[in-house]
């Protein structure tokens, strides 16, 4: 029973803070609400028995990505409130199209069946041992793992190259 209340509380926090990310005038407040959203999603991961994923989520998102966002906002001195070029027409159009998107997705996922309860006990699925076995199994994810290291190298080179003063 307590997990039900916890689920509704975490859902409320994540949806509300996600809305505040969009509607905050100051980008610094948006980042702080986004951190709150990430923590509540990490709580959802713990509720779903994905303990290791929850910890990695907190470390990667709240620890690395959000610090990067905050650094860029404070370095560019973006924490001003005005936002020119936003017309009422574009806001109305964004609201209508977002609402229609949600309508379509809810209508499409409402009719799925067989999602009432999990098929089996899955308390050990999210453990580090099991995930490592799946990741490095014989027919597992070894090649995508190596390719993602190449992706990181490329993005590191790209970020350094883009941040140079002059590109010749």
């Amino acid at each position, binding site marked *: 029973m307590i997990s*039900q209340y916890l*689920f509704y509380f975490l*859902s409320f926090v*994540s*949806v509300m803070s*996600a*809305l505040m*990310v*969009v509607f905050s005038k100051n*980008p610094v407040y*948006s980042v702080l609400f*986004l951190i709150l*959203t990430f923590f509540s999603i990490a709580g959802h991961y713990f509720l*779903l*028995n*994905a*303990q290791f*994923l929850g910890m*990695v*989520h907190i470390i990667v998102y709240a620890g690395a*990505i959000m610090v*990067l966002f905050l650094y*860029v906002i404070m*370095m*560019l001195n*973006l924490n001003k409130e005005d*936002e*020119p070029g*936003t017309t009422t027409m574009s*806001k109305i159009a*964004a*609201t209508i199209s*977002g609402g229609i*998107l*949600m309508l379509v*997705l*809810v209508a499409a*996922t409402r009719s*799925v069946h067989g*999602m009432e309860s*999990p098929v089996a*006990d*899955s308390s050990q*699925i*999210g453990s580090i041992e*099991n*995930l490592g076995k*799946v990741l490095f199994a014989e027919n*597992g*994810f070894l090649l*995508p793992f190596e390719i*993602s290291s190449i992706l*990181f190298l*490329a*993005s*590191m080179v*790209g*970020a350094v190259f*883009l*941040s140079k003063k002059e590109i010749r």
Partner: protein
Amino acid sequence: MELIPGISTEHYIFLSVVLFCIGAFGVMYRKNAIIVFMCIELMLNAVNLLLVAFSRQWNGADAQVFVFFVMAVAAAEVAVGLAILMMIYRNTGTTDINVLNKLKG
């Protein structure tokens, strides 16, 4: 650790849909490029949450491995995207995406 019963996967599908739509709405609603980036992160997280919920539903760990790769791609995307954003700010003095219409015919 004991399995926590009670919450059906339908609830998680609905929550993920709501979070994804908030992210997509924010991309269309805001004109500040850095907040557009944050809304993209929000959409990625909604998809991650859905993957983990299905991982519990079907008792398989493959979806959680996919979440790792989504996180890796998100980290690389943020690093390159913020570098591009700093270049835009250095060249135009603003991060408004309305100034980025030079390719418009």
